């Protein structure tokens, strides 16, 4: 949930020559607890996930007692399962529209507007945007559920304009969860871009102003290129966070109707826990982990590349 910047290195300790090798080794000892925790609760589950995805482990039935090695069966099943491709596609849509387009663009627009608006307005609006983000996940999900429900606020609003609303969660589940995710997650992008824009030197944009550059030109040719590092990292992080969204969807639509909003995390949960098919559930989870790893690797490269 953050934008670390590896390019800023800490002050160096006293020269390594001053200390013996043993002493240096000792100094690394404090890192051990974190390594152990990460190994036990992060690396081990990932490894277990890949392992279990090659078995028919289950919550109940014979396979619960003696899971068998089934090779690539679970992965082969994904290809024939009508729900998996749908679910993978919905995940792509969800991430692309709600994170990359939605949160990212809305966050940038808000941050840009804030640089040219009154302080009071900016901080008030900032609070409103951040509130949705700070709220516990499940409360935000309930609020979004109520908002989109048949008698909810959205339909009331449309009603005042004489528009007949729909049962959004049933008729348009994907737009509903996408909007809800934009609502909940935009604060993060906004915070990142506010910080990034405050670092853009004033004289650069002022110089451009002297040259008669118009607003959008300044934005496209000066501001955006200066903060491109932040844009890239923010894109990565919002993508990864959105990839993992479960509670919001689970509360709003539970993946329905008829799997119309079943993204991969929801599918993995249903297969593993609702249907008790741990093997297939972990196979889906493993695919998700691989996608996460891919984005993670791109993200690390981006940050290394941005390093001066």
């Amino acid at each position: 949930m953050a934008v670390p910047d590896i390019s800023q290195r800490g002050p160096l300790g006293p020269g390594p020559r001053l200390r013996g090798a043993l002493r240096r080794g000792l100094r690394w000892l404090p890192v051990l607890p974190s390594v152990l925790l990460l190994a036990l609760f992060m690396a081990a589950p990932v490894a277990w996930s890949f392992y279990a995805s090659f078995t028919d482990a289950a919550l109940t039935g014979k396979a619960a007692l003696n899971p068998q090695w089934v090779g690539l069966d679970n992965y082969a099943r994904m290809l024939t399962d009508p729900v998996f491709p749908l679910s993978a596609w919905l995940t792509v849509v969800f991430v692309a529209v709600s994170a990359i387009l939605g949160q990212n663009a809305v966050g940038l627009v808000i941050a840009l507007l804030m640089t040219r608006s009154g302080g009071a307005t900016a901080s008030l609006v900032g609070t409103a945007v951040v509130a949705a983000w700070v709220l516990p996940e499940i409360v935000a999900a309930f609020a979004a559920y109520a908002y989109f429900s048949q008698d909810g606020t959205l339909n009331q609003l449309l009603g005042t304009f004489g528009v007949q609303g729909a049962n959004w969660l049933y008729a348009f589940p994907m737009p509903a969860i996408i909007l809800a995710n934009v609502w909940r997650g935009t604060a993060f992008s906004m915070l990142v871009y506010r910080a990034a824009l405050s670092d853009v030197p004033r004289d650069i944009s002022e110089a451009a102003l002297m040259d008669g550059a118009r607003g959008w030109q300044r934005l496209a040719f000066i501001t955006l290129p200066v903060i491109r590092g932040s844009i890239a990292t923010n894109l990565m992080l919002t993508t990864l966070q959105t990839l993992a969204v479960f509670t919001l969807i689970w509360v709003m639509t539970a993946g329905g109707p008829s799997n119309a909003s079943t993204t991969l995390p929801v599918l993995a949960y249903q297969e593993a826990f609702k249907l008790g098919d741990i093997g297939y559930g972990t196979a889906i989870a493993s695919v998700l982990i691989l996608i996460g790893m891919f984005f993670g690797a791109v993200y690390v490269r981006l940050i290394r590349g941005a390093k001066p």
Partner: protein
Amino acid sequence: MRFGANAALVVIGLCFVLPLAWLLLASVDPHAGYETRWPQSASLANFAAVLTPGLLFQPLANSFILSAGTAIVNLVVAVLAAYPLSRCQSRFNKPFLYAILFGTSLPVTAIMVPVYGLFVQLQLLDSMPATIFFMATTTLPMAIWMTKNFMDSVPLELEEAAWMDGASGLATLRRVVMPLMRQGLGVVFIFVFIQAWGNFFVPFILLLSTSKQPAAVSVFSFFGQHGAIAYGELAAFSILYSVPVLVLYTVVARGSGSAFALSGAMKG
């Protein structure tokens, strides 16, 4: 120009506030439904109805234990790990930091199925301490990052003086470095606390007995059980459950001088 920006911002702000309006209005409306409306007879009956030990206090106490425990584990482990990372230069430094960074990218919902399996194997299901350690691990990469960044900004001279006096590394850390980065540690603590407080999925899978479940899970069963009837109570419960993190966030935002210190802390 400025007026335009202000107007646009206000419209966007309204869009963000709208879904919350229902929560506030329904909580004081004894006959609340899903529509947002001004209560005909506002009352605190919904709050009174959920202010019971079983419904509110026990789950909130559990949430507090889980969140505070997670934040403390994070703080201790992150400070220990960040110290050498910030103070020593070594060829392990960068790979480790990149690995940590990589760890922040792991979708936690994806590892819940295997984590459940792991907890079964180790017989840790339904254990609060084990759940705390797991939740701490999920936020640990970020906590190490933030802590290292805060530590980098503590000047080295004071530590060198302590070393001259013969203090060991860890003693210096405790007596010299940590007091200087108190504020930063506060930010890390609250940051982790807020995340843990709102976490639904992890305790939902790992904690089975009702007596150990945090508010996030109990509000979900509450909704499932009473969903068809008690909208007002749901809203009241949600508000009571959200207040602590809203307050904490405000503390961070205020205490650090700017409303967006959190973002600064993240950026490093």
